[in-house]
């Protein structure tokens, strides 16, 4: 289990990195934290001609807040984000999701941008980006800078809207209105494993009527990409935030899914647990929304 040979570059600037990726075509791969890529190399399941190491690009390691927006550089380590008070305050669901990723020694190397770009459908951050309606800022020499809504970013199994010569530079999380609650939960074989099924939910309550203004729920582990449940969300808009409403919505959610089976759980199991977690996270989000209101 030793990686195959490849070339390696460690540019200091984003421009240089984009140049290298543009030159090499799709045989080159960016190297962020390496926590998913290096095992694929060791198993010889990935065979890049060149790795472009992004660790030296200091502009990608900034984490900042402005106008209620949170901007997380792609090379911010997950452990760093997890410890950051601004993440906790402005994107509590992200703060709650980060400790579910792997283990401390994984998160101290793994990056926000790496996890999103890797687009593992069972990973936590892609589902969280969806439920946050985050913007993913990308840059390339050919296309310049563009902002991709999370809903358009995850296009398939381990596949994103990023072109081979394009890099994710920033995760932008919009501010949330008062009366908003968030929740994330997952079922995994063990603590720290990829989710068999994960769910992230948001509920915003109308502060005058107490009814649901907006609900969002996104799931991991139930398809080729993280899944946002638009129909379920519509069912809840305007409803009373009662247990029955969440149960009905979750049941609706489960019936719409066609997950694949693997050694950790059958399709029927994933569908069932998706419903359970959708209900649990929506209910908890609503409770938090009431507390926040």
């Amino acid at each position, binding site marked *: *289990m*030793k*990686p*195959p*040979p490849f070339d390696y570059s460690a540019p200091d600037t984003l421009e240089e990195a984009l140049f290298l990726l543009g030159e090499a075509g799709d045989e080159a791969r960016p190297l962020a934290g390496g926590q998913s890529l290096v095992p694929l190399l060791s*198993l*010889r399941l990935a065979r890049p001609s060149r790795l472009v190491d992004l660790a030296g690009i200091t502009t990608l390691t900034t984490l900042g807040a402005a106008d209620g927006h949170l901007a997380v550089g792609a090379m911010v380590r997950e452990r760093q984000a997890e410890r950051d008070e601004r993440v906790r305050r402005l994107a509590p669901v992200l703060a709650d999701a980060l400790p579910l990723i792997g283990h401390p020694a994984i998160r101290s190397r793994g990056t926000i941008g790496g996890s999103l770009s890797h687009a593992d459908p069972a990973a936590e951050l892609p589902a969280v980006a969806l439920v946050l309606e985050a913007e993913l800022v990308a840059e390339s020499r050919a296309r310049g800078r563009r902002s991709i809504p999370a809903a358009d970013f995850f296009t398939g199994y381990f596949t994103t809207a990023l072109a081979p010569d394009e890099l994710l530079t920033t995760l932008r999380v919009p501010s949330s209105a008062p009366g908003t609650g968030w929740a994330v939960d997952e*079922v995994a*074989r*063990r*603590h*720290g*494993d*990829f989710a*068999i099924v994960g769910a992230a939910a948001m509920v915003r309550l109308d502060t005058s009527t107490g009814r649901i203004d907006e609900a969002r729920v996104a799931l991991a582990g139930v398809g080729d990409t993280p899944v946002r449940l638009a129909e379920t969300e519509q069912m809840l808009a305007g409803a009373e935030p009662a247990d029955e409403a969440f149960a009905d919505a979750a049941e609706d959610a489960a019936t719409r899914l066609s997950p694949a*089976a*693997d*050694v*950790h*759980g*059958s*399709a*029927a*199991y994933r*569908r*069932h*647990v998706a419903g*359970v*977690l959708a209900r649990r996270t929506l209910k908890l989000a609503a409770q938090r929304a009431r507390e926040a209101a």
Partner: protein
Amino acid sequence: MQHIAERYTGASVRRSEDPRILTGSGRYVDDVRLPGMLHAAFVRSPVAHARITRIDVREAAKAPGVVLVLTGEELERSLVPGPGIAAMFSGGAPVPAFTTLATGKVRVVGDPVVLVVAESRYLAEDACELVEVDYEELPAVMTPQAARDPASPAIFEDLGSNVLVRSPVAVFGDVDGAFARADRIVRADLRQHRHQNAPMECRGVVCSFDPESGELTVHSATQGVHIVRTTLSTALGLPPEKVRVLAGDIGGSFGLKLGAYREDVACAAASRQLSRPVRWMEDRLENLTFSGQAREESFEVAAAVTNEGEILGLRVKMTIDTGAYPGMGTMLPELVKTMIPGPYKIGALSFEWTAVVTNKAAYVAYRGPWASETWVRERMVDLIAMELGMEPIQVRLRNVATRETPPRRMVTGRSLAGVTAKESLEAIASTVDLPSFRRLQAGAREHGRYLGLGMATYIEPAPGPLEGKGGGGIMGPEQIRLRLAEDGTVTLFTSQMPHGQSHQTTFAQIAADEFGVPIEQVRVVVGDSDLVPMGFGTGGSRAATMAGGASLHGARALKARVKEIASHLFEAGAEDIELSGGSVAVRGVPASAMSLAELARAARSPGRLPPSLAGDVEVTAAFDGGEGGWSGGSHAAIVEVDVETGQVRVERYVVAEDCGILINPAIVEGQVRGGVAQGIGAVLLERSVYDEETGQYLSSTFMDYVLATACEIPRIEIEHLETVPLDADVNFRGVGEGGMIIAPPTLCNAIEDALSPFGARVLEQHLPPARILELIGAIPAG
């Protein structure tokens, strides 16, 4: 906080292994560096069952850093044909013909086909990718049902069939009478799933052949150096004395690292051919895919019971899936047969078994290899209790043999002397407070929370009653050698090959007490086939009794020898010699004191002693197990099942164990806890999964073969019953396997209890979340 005790035995003495292990200075096989050392990698079969139609190694041989490429046919020319280690554990079953590297056919995913030796492992793996092998695929035979089908293609042509053994029906007691007398017959088809040892250190070997001397030196991660020596010298056609096997620290094994494997033979042959050291370290992919798996057995059981819960008899049909290549699969059913009554007064048993070959990894020994007898019996007890509406512990207490009442033997003939099943069951029932648990459980259910309590009991031959069979169980007596070194330390040479069991501490405790020196003055030498006495090595939970007993008797003999020498030197009677504090003296004459170092030097000085005593102060001793005896105990688990997600949480785990006298309580408890953790993992997490259509192996990484972490294993409460001394001196018994034997039924019983409102019956051992939801009918069976 070193515990200072009058005796070391019985105290949780700190381990002498730890200073090296805690500082990174242990020496494992992967740490061996020899000048000119080369690195091996294997081209392995990507398919389960196929004919090899072409192998082309030309590109690989030209690749950078490559020194040698060997196909199976080329390698075979330098080897002596034969089954190797396979015959040793076959239990007399037919052993099919196969070669060290696959020739003609591959029989399992991961089957080694070509050996590549290069200047680094990186380069060896690069070259492996350049080897071209063409396969003509055959249908993969992946289940016992498929293997039984006469139309299935024979995996080994010389066997002619994929059914390896169909045993006669063994009958003990009046089985027909028991079933005729029974009020009810409780039937169940029970399945154990395939899972595996997965020690943290994979297998590995460094072979170094010296053409000058014709000697092969082998550094091996192994449970016993002499079995490795035997297998390698046989395969290479070398005299045993020309093969020296060394073993350093071993990173766990749990039964896997017994003897030399096919890869080891290939590396030894390559080293001989190249006259350079060749190292192979198995990687995790190879380990999980190929090195060995265990436990895949199924049982059709019928129990004859009375309405009062008495178990009159059992009828058992066992099927074992031995995988592709011979391992231990055909040896175990007879052990299961003998042990299945356990500590119970079951009066009749019929037992028959079938062993089949499939295109899966070989069935190997795994911690308590015969454990299915406990799982099947303890599962049946709970199913009987459910059928009768009784508390399971009532059924157990009604049927276990006690020390006061006959019978004193299992119906299969084994003595039950010293068994304390009743005592340990009563201990756990009292600790968990059964009545108050039932109240708690009822209350929780009203709030949609599903708690369950499971119990189980077992005995383990560690080594088991002697019964005049030559001693030492199936592996024979244990030898030991002790020497008083010239610096006054006692050096103890043992064939035991510890791989986590702390023998270098425990044997030193025993010898220090018996000989009368501080423990720091006892050195335990392991892992050198030229130095340690011939023996099987570590396995079968035999070290405590067998090697512990040998240490005690050896230290006693050494002490007698020292006194005899001192009596010559002092011209005093041996009975007047005192040995204490590292010196000998004539009783009452402190001025006569002579240090042990001086005595050892004097013994070696020419002319000081008669020839019978002169020279090295050294004794050998052997121990046959003495009065032997069982270890065993009872465990209880309390679980909570989330019936929405199928997740099981072990809330409490209680152990009452009896391994006789504790040599080192902390080490005993470590063995118990480690075994229980593996048992919990087996039920909740670990399974070796094959695609039954294609034969592909689906659990080849630690992402898919999931081991328990600190978040899944609870604190384990342990009570020790040191109940029945049977032997005059040696009453410590083995405890290495018990936890792994009994935790699976304990946990399965607890889960079934938690799910009883759903009417779920647990007939399999592996209960991952998805399966829990299937059992309660929340989702359709997958």
